């Protein structure tokens, strides 16, 4: 935040720029010529209905599904991201909606999956990994004690904490959170929101995909609305209402372009109702 207020956002180099990204599955353009950018310490809410292309766009950044065309820049430098390893090199970390945990191994193994700490003899240093996991989990979920159990036996919130621990431990600069609160209860949701604010304050840029307009309005600086693989508009949160964003999600049009009849037909419920 401190950084964000010193220099107007428009004048700084974004940490991530995605330009004219296209991703097609078969003949379907899941993402069609989409451009977004993200600054340090900024949260971009990425919203849209099912199949709007939010997750696919983010998979292009995380390396899970490289784009068919388009350009990605990190700190102004063009980069090639063809797999998850590439993304991690640029400190792009992702918390997937499915959490992407290996259920049969324990929390430290999941936190360090693919980046294990090793001893001088190239064997895994389980002690050091458990120690580091205890420290980072102490910050995220202080009550967590089950460090040697397969994560399959953990609760939804604990599993989420493990997935988040994996991202924050490795000094993410760019964090993608795909529906981070979808499977959580109210207390755990509040914890995740606090964490997002904390990470943002540390200068991490966050893409937040969510169905929950509460989350988005609560946490985002800007909101990008996607509809059928395209960006409808990217708006500054303080300049729009939740109803206007809902209208964009459902109609795929900017507020000014929608007719009164279309808006009336929506019969929007009270402000902040979740769309799903």
């Amino acid at each position: 935040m401190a950084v964000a207020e010193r220099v107007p956002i428009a004048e700084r180099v974004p940490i991530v720029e995605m330009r004219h990204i296209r991703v097609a599955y078969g003949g379907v353009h899941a993402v069609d010529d989409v451009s977004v950018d993200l600054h340090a310490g900024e949260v971009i809410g990425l919203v849209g209905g099912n199949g709007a292309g939010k997750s696919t766009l983010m998979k292009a950044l995380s390396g899970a599904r490289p784009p068919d065309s388009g350009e990605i820049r990190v700190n102004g430098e063009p980069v090639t991201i063809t797999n998850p390893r590439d993304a991690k090199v640029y400190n792009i970390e992702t918390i997937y909606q499915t959490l992407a945990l290996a259920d049969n191994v324990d929390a430290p193994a999941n936190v360090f999956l693919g980046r294990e700490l090793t001893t001088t003899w190239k064997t895994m240093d389980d002690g050091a990994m458990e120690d580091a996991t205890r420290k980072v989990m102490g910050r995220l979920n202080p009550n967590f004690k089950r460090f040697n159990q397969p994560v399959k036996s953990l609760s939804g919130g604990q599993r989420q904490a493990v997935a988040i621990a994996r991202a924050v431990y490795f000094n993410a600069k760019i964090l993608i959170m795909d529906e981070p609160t979808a499977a959580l209860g109210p207390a755990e949701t509040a914890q995740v929101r606090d964490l997002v604010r904390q990470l943002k304050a540390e200068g991490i840029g966050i893409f937040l995909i969510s169905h929950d307009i509460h989350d988005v309005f609560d946490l985002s600086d800007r909101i990008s609305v996607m509809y059928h693989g395209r960006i409808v508009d990217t708006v500054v949160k303080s300049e729009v209402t939740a109803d206007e964003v809902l209208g964009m999600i459902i109609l795929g049009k900017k507020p000014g372009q929608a007719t009164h009849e279309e808006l009336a037909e929506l019969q929007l419920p009270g402000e902040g109702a979740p769309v799903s």
Partner: protein
Amino acid sequence: MADIASTAPGQAPAAPRLSIRGALSAAEIDFRLFGMLIALAAILLGFNVVNGGTFLRAENMTTLAVQGAGVAILATGMVLVIVARNIDLSVGSLVGFIAMTYALLMTDWLPNILGMGVDFPFRWLIALLIGIGLGAIFGGLQGFIIAYVGVPSFVVTLGGLLSIRGAVWVLSQGAAVSGLDPTFQLFGGSAEGSVGGTITWAIAVVGCLAIIGLLVYNRRQRRRFGFPVRPMWAEVALGVVGCLAVLGLAAFANGNYWPPGAATRYAQEHGIIEPPGGLKLSVGLPWPVVILLAVAIVMTFLATRLRFGRYIYAYGGNPEAAELAGINTRWQLMKIYILMGVLCAISAAIAVGRLNGATLDVGQSYELYVIAAAVVGGTSFAGGIGTIPGAVLGAFVMQALAYGLAYSGYNSPIQNIVAGVVLVLAVGFDAYYRRRGGRT
């Protein structure tokens, strides 16, 4: 919350439970592995009772161990294959192919093509290395097709099963080949192919030191980071029980003596004057068993201490997660098949050593026994679950049944019926136990 229901491992239960299970969990012993040990002991004791106490003798147990070693060695690799949600049906054919290669190397290729006669030093090692190389190539080729081309492993290795068995025939023109290098015969584990009493004791002592060393090291490691440790009684009990078991097994194995004829020959060859009543020479551990021990230790190390093993288990638990974590999953998968091929070469050496040659059907149906051993040993086809000690125990449970039935006078059709029923029962019991919420 679920946290209350179970005690975190490493911490003594708040109210000490006086059950076997409570003690085992405090000592962090795998409950399933312990159950398998009990099952194996029960099978052996059962056959002993049925046969009026003649079954549980060192000769019988040594023979049983030698017969089971070839399958057990392969099972240590099959665990990893199945943990990674794949299968390898070609192991039996590959064992047969490499076995025939060893036999031909010894009798024909090495002396006639490379000019390495019987006196050539380390001929056995040259043959073994060629076999291991072949295993790695065949395994690697199959692994490449599975991992990089994307043909299902069932199909690839079924093709391997058929075509490699055919290649055995082509290799030997349909003939059995016999007559090995005398050193190579030691792989077979006859009286000569055993390490003898002194080395058996030495292996046992090293084993005890390793057990104590590991316990101390693990405790130090956990102390270093201030983690909860096992209660001291559990550490001491584990050390004492482990060492007694190792020394007891060594003493038992050393109760097996050379047959009188062979002992007399040995005495004459070594210029020893035979005492009255014959020379009593301990056979000790047969080489196949020593090799199995070494393989099991190395494979356990690979599976639990190296990233390779971690990646295989993570991939088996959730292939997508492993991929997204940036693991090169294709290469890991291919490596498993290379490893499997190497194990085939080791197993083939034992088979050839026992036969003093190779027939066309060496390793026939091995794939089925090996898969059965892994599955009885607690490996799950759902992926991600299975241990190497479990698979070795599973191999010996199956071998003990077959050997015990044969010893009791039942022929091989009966042995097959029992093996099949036990396989299904073991997995059924396992599934039931898991549904009941047992620890996995």
